[in-house]
């Protein structure tokens, strides 16, 4: 399981970096999303995956007697997902506006020369 996740993280990071290095804006966005997902899985992996042991304590116990799944990485990932949802949706709307204005998906067309500054 761990090895599979490690490979998945590697693939996601590699694909993300590859996409970011392209000139297309949509690919830039996709690359950022893939990197974000890779990071989320990395956090999940680092929280030591424990199967079938929910972090719920018996009513008569004060401390955990058994090994249990750490809920914090999942809380972190959930927060990160929520944030990246907001950022991604904003980015999509922004890129649509830019595309409507410039009519191009190429990042190189995104440079106004300095002479046109106010």
């Amino acid at each position: 399981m761990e090895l599979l996740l490690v490979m998945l993280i590697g693939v996601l990071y590699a694909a993300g970096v590859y996409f970011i290095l392209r000139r297309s804006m949509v690919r830039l966005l996709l690359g950022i999303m893939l990197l974000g997902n890779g990071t989320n899985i990395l956090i999940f992996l680092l929280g030591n995956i424990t199967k079938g042991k929910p972090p719920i304590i018996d009513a008569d116990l004060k401390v955990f007697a058994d090994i249990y799944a750490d809920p914090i990485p999942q809380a972190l990932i959930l927060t990160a997902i929520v944030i990246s949802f907001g950022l991604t949706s904003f980015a999509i709307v922004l890129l649509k506006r830019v595309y409507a204005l410039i009519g191009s998906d190429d990042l190189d067309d995104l440079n106004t020369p300095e002479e046109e500054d106010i």
Partner: protein
Amino acid sequence: MRSPILQTAAKYLLPILLLFSAFLLLRGHYHPGGGFVGGLVASIAFVLHSFAYGTDNTMKLLWYKPLTLIPIGLMIASAAMFAPVLFGLPVMTGLWFDQPIPVIGMIGSALFFDLGVYLVVIGVVLTILFTISLYTH
């Protein structure tokens, strides 16, 4: 393209999904669920409706712009955050009623915080999706 199957299904699924989202919201404190998931389910109900009947009809169904839900939700959430300060406790401390209320269970300031999150999530998701879908047409 309007599909009669999707339209009929959406008509019945909308109230069921909304009920389910309320269920998720209420059980959220000690069980899986909560304001965020509940809000997502509720907004998916409206998104399904907009797929079946078109975005304009869904907006009519909602009466108000979904954008107005964001400040309302934020206000409820921050009131729940701020309430413990009035009792001399640190911000965001959970305040609980002593007696559980039938059907709903224990009520505390955490529930109101979740309710705020629920409304904000519906507002944000619907605003974004409506903006994107109206922009294309």
